[in-house]
Protein backbone atom coordinates (compact mmCIF):
# COMPACT_ATOMS: atom_id res chain seq x y z
CA UNK A 1 0.00 0.00 0.00
CA UNK A 2 1.70 3.13 -1.20
CA UNK A 3 1.70 6.03 1.21
CA UNK A 4 1.92 8.61 -1.55
CA UNK A 5 -1.12 10.71 -2.18
CA UNK A 6 -2.08 10.87 -5.85
CA UNK A 7 -3.00 14.54 -5.61
CA UNK A 8 0.34 15.91 -6.70
CA UNK A 9 2.55 15.09 -9.65
CA UNK A 10 6.02 13.70 -8.98
CA UNK A 11 8.66 16.31 -9.76
CA UNK A 12 10.13 15.59 -13.22
CA UNK A 13 13.85 14.80 -13.10
CA UNK A 14 16.58 16.42 -15.20
CA UNK A 15 16.46 19.82 -16.82
CA UNK A 16 14.41 21.57 -19.46
CA UNK A 17 10.77 22.65 -19.52
CA UNK A 18 9.05 19.94 -17.43
CA UNK A 19 10.71 20.61 -14.05
CA UNK A 20 10.42 24.35 -14.79
CA UNK A 21 6.66 23.93 -15.31
CA UNK A 22 6.42 21.80 -12.14
CA UNK A 23 7.96 24.61 -10.06
CA UNK A 24 6.07 27.36 -11.90
CA UNK A 25 2.63 25.85 -11.22
CA UNK A 26 3.51 25.60 -7.50
CA UNK A 27 4.96 29.13 -7.21
CA UNK A 28 1.99 30.67 -9.07
CA UNK A 29 -0.28 28.51 -6.89
CA UNK A 30 1.19 30.02 -3.72
CA UNK A 31 0.74 33.52 -5.16
CA UNK A 32 -2.85 32.72 -6.15
CA UNK A 33 -3.66 31.45 -2.66
CA UNK A 34 -3.23 35.07 -1.54
CA UNK A 35 -4.24 36.97 -4.69
CA UNK A 36 -7.28 34.97 -5.82
CA UNK A 37 -8.76 34.47 -2.34
CA UNK A 38 -8.28 38.19 -1.54
CA UNK A 39 -9.87 39.19 -4.86
CA UNK A 40 -12.84 36.85 -4.29
CA UNK A 41 -13.30 38.03 -0.68
CA UNK A 42 -13.27 41.73 -1.61
CA UNK A 43 -15.75 41.33 -4.47
CA UNK A 44 -18.14 38.90 -2.76
CA UNK A 45 -17.90 39.56 0.98
CA UNK A 46 -16.99 43.27 1.25
CA UNK A 47 -18.81 44.46 -1.88
CA UNK A 48 -21.86 42.77 -3.39
CA UNK A 49 -22.12 41.88 -7.11
CA UNK A 50 -25.38 43.86 -7.32
CA UNK A 51 -23.45 47.14 -6.91
CA UNK A 52 -20.51 46.30 -9.20
CA UNK A 53 -21.57 48.21 -12.31
CA UNK A 54 -19.08 49.42 -14.92
CA UNK A 55 -19.22 52.76 -13.10
CA UNK A 56 -18.28 51.10 -9.80
CA UNK A 57 -15.18 49.63 -11.45
CA UNK A 58 -13.93 52.92 -12.95
CA UNK A 59 -14.95 55.12 -9.98
CA UNK A 60 -14.10 52.85 -7.09
CA UNK A 61 -12.57 49.43 -7.60
CA UNK A 62 -9.98 50.42 -10.23
CA UNK A 63 -9.59 54.02 -9.05
CA UNK A 64 -6.17 53.20 -7.57
CA UNK A 65 -3.02 52.02 -9.32
CA UNK A 66 -2.48 49.54 -6.46
CA UNK A 67 -5.67 47.57 -7.15
CA UNK A 68 -5.09 47.67 -10.91
CA UNK A 69 -1.60 46.30 -10.31
CA UNK A 70 -3.01 43.71 -7.89
CA UNK A 71 -5.59 42.49 -10.40
CA UNK A 72 -3.07 42.52 -13.26
CA UNK A 73 -0.66 40.39 -11.17
CA UNK A 74 -3.59 38.07 -10.42
CA UNK A 75 -4.26 37.85 -14.18
CA UNK A 76 -0.64 36.93 -14.93
CA UNK A 77 -0.52 34.28 -12.19
CA UNK A 78 -3.89 32.77 -13.14
CA UNK A 79 -3.01 32.61 -16.84
CA UNK A 80 0.22 30.69 -16.18
CA UNK A 81 -1.31 28.50 -13.47
CA UNK A 82 -4.59 27.62 -15.18
CA UNK A 83 -3.15 27.04 -18.63
CA UNK A 84 -0.29 24.90 -17.28
CA UNK A 85 -2.97 22.91 -15.45
CA UNK A 86 -5.07 22.52 -18.59
CA UNK A 87 -1.91 21.49 -20.47
CA UNK A 88 -1.35 18.70 -17.92
CA UNK A 89 -4.95 17.51 -18.35
CA UNK A 90 -4.76 17.55 -22.17
CA UNK A 91 -1.48 15.62 -22.05
CA UNK A 92 -3.03 13.07 -19.68
CA UNK A 93 -6.03 12.25 -21.86
CA UNK A 94 -5.29 13.22 -25.48
CA UNK A 95 -2.57 12.02 -27.85
CA UNK A 96 -1.26 12.69 -31.35
CA UNK A 97 -2.62 15.40 -33.61
CA UNK A 98 -5.63 16.14 -31.38
CA UNK A 99 -3.24 16.88 -28.51
CA UNK A 100 -1.23 19.29 -30.66
CA UNK A 101 -4.38 21.02 -31.90
CA UNK A 102 -5.88 21.35 -28.39
CA UNK A 103 -2.63 22.68 -26.95
CA UNK A 104 -2.30 25.24 -29.76
CA UNK A 105 -5.90 26.32 -29.09
CA UNK A 106 -5.19 26.62 -25.35
CA UNK A 107 -2.03 28.65 -25.86
CA UNK A 108 -3.83 30.96 -28.32
CA UNK A 109 -6.64 31.48 -25.80
CA UNK A 110 -4.07 32.25 -23.08
CA UNK A 111 -2.46 34.88 -25.33
CA UNK A 112 -5.87 36.43 -26.12
CA UNK A 113 -6.79 36.65 -22.42
CA UNK A 114 -3.37 38.15 -21.64
CA UNK A 115 -3.95 40.86 -24.27
CA UNK A 116 -7.63 41.58 -23.40
CA UNK A 117 -6.98 41.74 -19.65
CA UNK A 118 -3.89 43.90 -20.04
CA UNK A 119 -5.67 46.31 -22.40
CA UNK A 120 -8.62 46.86 -20.07
CA UNK A 121 -6.53 47.25 -16.91
CA UNK A 122 -4.13 49.69 -18.61
CA UNK A 123 -6.55 51.77 -20.70
CA UNK A 124 -9.74 52.06 -18.62
CA UNK A 125 -9.94 55.72 -17.50
CA UNK A 126 -9.41 56.39 -13.81
CA UNK A 127 -12.42 57.60 -11.83
CA UNK A 128 -13.33 61.24 -12.41
CA UNK A 129 -11.81 61.31 -15.88
CA UNK A 130 -15.07 60.66 -17.69
Amino acid at each position, binding site marked *: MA*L*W*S*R*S*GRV*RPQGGGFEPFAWYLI*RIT*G*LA*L*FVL*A*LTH*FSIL*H*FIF*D*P*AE*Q*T*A*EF*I*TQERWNQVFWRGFDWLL*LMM*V*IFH*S*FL*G*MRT*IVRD*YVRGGARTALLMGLYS*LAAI*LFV*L*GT*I*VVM*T*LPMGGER
Partner: protein
Amino acid sequence: MLLRYRGSEGMLAWAFHRISGIGIWAFVVLHVIDIYLVGGNPEAYDEILQIYASLPGRILEIVLGGALFYHALNGMRIIVMDFWPAMTVHHKRLWYINWVIFLVVGIPGAWIIIKPAFGM
Protein backbone atom coordinates in the same frame (compact mmCIF):
# COMPACT_ATOMS: atom_id res chain seq x y z
CA MET B 1 -8.05 7.77 -16.07
CA LEU B 2 -10.53 9.90 -14.24
CA LEU B 3 -13.01 7.14 -13.44
CA ARG B 4 -10.71 4.28 -12.48
CA TYR B 5 -11.05 3.74 -8.74
CA ARG B 6 -7.68 3.75 -7.01
CA GLY B 7 -8.82 4.19 -3.47
CA SER B 8 -10.18 6.46 -0.82
CA GLU B 9 -9.18 9.99 0.08
CA GLY B 10 -6.09 10.36 -2.11
CA MET B 11 -8.03 9.67 -5.31
CA LEU B 12 -10.98 11.84 -4.31
CA ALA B 13 -8.65 14.72 -3.38
CA TRP B 14 -7.01 14.39 -6.81
CA ALA B 15 -10.32 14.15 -8.73
CA PHE B 16 -11.86 17.14 -6.90
CA HIS B 17 -8.69 19.14 -7.53
CA ARG B 18 -8.84 18.42 -11.25
CA ILE B 19 -12.59 19.07 -11.63
CA SER B 20 -12.47 22.30 -9.58
CA GLY B 21 -9.44 23.42 -11.59
CA ILE B 22 -11.27 22.99 -14.90
CA GLY B 23 -14.27 24.88 -13.50
CA ILE B 24 -12.17 27.79 -12.27
CA TRP B 25 -10.31 27.93 -15.60
CA ALA B 26 -13.63 28.18 -17.47
CA PHE B 27 -14.78 31.01 -15.19
CA VAL B 28 -11.49 32.88 -15.64
CA VAL B 29 -11.99 32.80 -19.43
CA LEU B 30 -15.51 34.22 -19.00
CA HIS B 31 -14.44 36.74 -16.38
CA VAL B 32 -11.56 38.27 -18.38
CA ILE B 33 -13.97 38.71 -21.31
CA ASP B 34 -16.71 40.30 -19.14
CA ILE B 35 -14.22 42.69 -17.49
CA TYR B 36 -12.93 43.64 -20.95
CA LEU B 37 -16.48 44.82 -21.67
CA VAL B 38 -16.21 47.44 -18.89
CA GLY B 39 -14.00 49.37 -21.31
CA GLY B 40 -15.39 48.11 -24.61
CA ASN B 41 -19.15 48.01 -23.91
CA PRO B 42 -20.17 49.12 -20.38
CA GLU B 43 -23.92 48.65 -21.06
CA ALA B 44 -23.35 45.00 -21.96
CA TYR B 45 -21.23 44.58 -18.81
CA ASP B 46 -23.98 45.98 -16.61
CA GLU B 47 -26.45 43.54 -18.18
CA ILE B 48 -24.16 40.57 -17.47
CA LEU B 49 -23.82 41.87 -13.92
CA GLN B 50 -27.57 41.51 -13.39
CA ILE B 51 -27.15 37.78 -14.09
CA TYR B 52 -24.34 37.56 -11.50
CA ALA B 53 -26.55 39.32 -8.92
CA SER B 54 -29.60 37.08 -9.51
CA LEU B 55 -30.42 34.05 -7.34
CA PRO B 56 -29.10 31.48 -9.88
CA GLY B 57 -26.04 33.70 -10.36
CA ARG B 58 -25.40 33.76 -6.63
CA ILE B 59 -25.74 29.98 -6.39
CA LEU B 60 -23.13 29.66 -9.15
CA GLU B 61 -20.88 32.13 -7.26
CA ILE B 62 -21.09 29.87 -4.19
CA VAL B 63 -20.11 26.91 -6.39
CA LEU B 64 -17.24 28.98 -7.83
CA GLY B 65 -16.10 30.12 -4.39
CA GLY B 66 -16.27 26.53 -3.12
CA ALA B 67 -14.24 25.25 -6.09
CA LEU B 68 -11.70 28.05 -5.60
CA PHE B 69 -11.38 27.48 -1.86
CA TYR B 70 -11.12 23.68 -2.16
CA HIS B 71 -8.50 24.02 -4.92
CA ALA B 72 -6.53 26.57 -2.86
CA LEU B 73 -6.54 24.44 0.32
CA ASN B 74 -5.77 21.17 -1.46
CA GLY B 75 -3.05 22.96 -3.46
CA MET B 76 -1.40 23.91 -0.16
CA ARG B 77 -1.67 20.27 0.90
CA ILE B 78 0.09 19.19 -2.30
CA ILE B 79 2.85 21.78 -1.84
CA VAL B 80 3.38 20.76 1.80
CA MET B 81 3.82 17.10 0.75
CA ASP B 82 6.02 18.01 -2.23
CA PHE B 83 8.51 20.02 -0.19
CA TRP B 84 8.16 18.09 3.09
CA PRO B 85 7.75 14.46 1.97
CA ALA B 86 7.47 13.14 5.53
CA MET B 87 4.03 14.80 5.66
CA THR B 88 2.82 12.43 2.94
CA VAL B 89 2.21 9.84 5.70
CA HIS B 90 -0.50 12.23 6.98
CA HIS B 91 -2.07 12.96 3.59
CA LYS B 92 -5.54 11.83 4.73
CA ARG B 93 -5.36 13.85 7.95
CA LEU B 94 -4.29 16.93 5.95
CA TRP B 95 -7.29 16.42 3.67
CA TYR B 96 -9.70 16.28 6.63
CA ILE B 97 -8.11 19.43 8.10
CA ASN B 98 -8.80 21.07 4.73
CA TRP B 99 -12.46 20.12 4.97
CA VAL B 100 -12.76 21.56 8.48
CA ILE B 101 -11.30 24.90 7.30
CA PHE B 102 -13.45 24.69 4.15
CA LEU B 103 -16.68 24.35 6.14
CA VAL B 104 -15.82 26.78 8.95
CA VAL B 105 -15.01 29.56 6.46
CA GLY B 106 -17.23 28.42 3.61
CA ILE B 107 -20.63 28.18 5.32
CA PRO B 108 -20.62 31.81 6.59
CA GLY B 109 -19.17 32.87 3.24
CA ALA B 110 -21.95 31.14 1.32
CA TRP B 111 -24.52 32.83 3.55
CA ILE B 112 -23.03 36.29 2.87
CA ILE B 113 -23.23 35.63 -0.88
CA ILE B 114 -26.80 34.26 -0.92
CA LYS B 115 -28.57 36.50 1.60
CA PRO B 116 -29.10 39.58 -0.66
CA ALA B 117 -31.22 37.32 -2.90
CA PHE B 118 -33.64 37.01 0.04
CA GLY B 119 -33.59 40.77 0.71
CA MET B 120 -31.34 40.43 3.78
